[in-house]
């Protein structure tokens, strides 16, 4: 258990540092994608309300857009899992 010396009088084990890193990676990294998905679905709902007949087109494109936004959160997850379990 290797102690890392952070500030004067603060020592922390490397495992604890790893867990802190993993949780920060996932937590901060999912903030923006969540916002993006919320905005996207909101706009899709607006469009759907204006033109309910175009529902398949709107829905398909909405799912596509959500996939792009979610991919960013998935990158953060992969980094968090790598920090937590691989390194």
């Amino acid at each position, binding site marked *: *258990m290797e102690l890392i010396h952070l500030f004067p009088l603060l020592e922390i084990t490397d495992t604890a540092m790893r867990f802190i890193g993993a949780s920060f990676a996932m937590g901060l990294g999912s903030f923006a994608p969540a916002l993006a998905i919320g905005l996207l679905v909101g706009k899709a709902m607006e469009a759907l309300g204006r033109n309910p007949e175009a529902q398949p087109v709107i829905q398909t494109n909405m*799912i596509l857009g959500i996939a792009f936004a*979610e991919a960013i959160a*998935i990158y953060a997850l992969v980094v968090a899992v*790598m920090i937590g*379990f691989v390194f």
Partner: protein
Amino acid sequence: MRRFKGLAIGLAVLILVLAGFLFLRSPKPIIELKAETVFSIGPFNVTNTYITSWIVIIFISLFAYAATRRMSLVPRGIQNLFEAIIEAIYNLVINSAGEKHGRRFFPVVATIFLYVAMCNWFGLLPLFATVGKVEEISAQSQAFHEKGVVIHEVAGLNVIMPAADDVELPKTVTLPDAKVEDVSADSSVEVKQLAIDEATRDLNLGKDKKIGVLVPFLRSVNTDLNSPLALAVWSAIFVEFWGISAYGFFRYGSKFFNFGRLLRGKILDGFIDAFVGIMEFVAEAARLVSFTFRLFGNILAGEILFLVVIFLVPLVFLQFVYFMELFVGAIQAFIFAMLTLVFGIIAVSAPHGEAEGH
């Protein structure tokens, strides 16, 4: 009586949750990113995801064969099911890409969709990630794992019991002559034995208990990074192929390597064109990465979620995770296929700035 029925159901669920929490929790999950090798044929390591991918391929082939064996104009049975699926995907492709290009895109897009959907759903079947061989952590064995679980031997089979103890080998050991050594795969036998003794000091390992790690025989295909990467590479190859076959090599390549105006002498416009071309190239490469990690991350996250939920509260909350995984598996397959289609459409449609100046 209706009031009591709701109450009874709620009570039954609560009892199930408590029973699962108290008696049926698995030991701490050991999450392995790399796909484990089950056996090797010469220099080729057969991993558990490879076995699963072949099972999926054989399943889809048998399904297609059964559907087209005695084809009739009015479909019935399996042919009906297959036709419904194919027709749905075909309409999607044709509505997006038009008749001419759609017929060319359709086989690739449909294959990607069916293969990825089946792969993801196969990962939810009962035998996956639970049945396998046990690699024992002992000082003599070649296989080295840092974390393990206590495995009981029940009637000749090695079984991981619920709430078994988990074992983590220490990172360093101090030898009798006060030297501190790292414990890793190429440590000596004494160092490994010392590490194992230190880790298992508080557990009483009798004759029928040993520490080891479960190597499952079957594992969901897209949890191995190689599989989504292979699919993404093929998707990129096909998209470029469609672009080149629609426009010819140089005209399609001029989307990326747009040095015409630069060489003709217009410096600023030329640099802008060249820069835009290089950005397009970088975007293509970034798409490879994003395709891979989207599919890999989603499916891996599902598997980790399963393991963690089984560790925390099995029996009832697992159903919700299961439903989400079914949904996510299908959605990710759909997204991969649709993105391939969309990028194919972009590749065969007229590039920017084609109209001006010609």
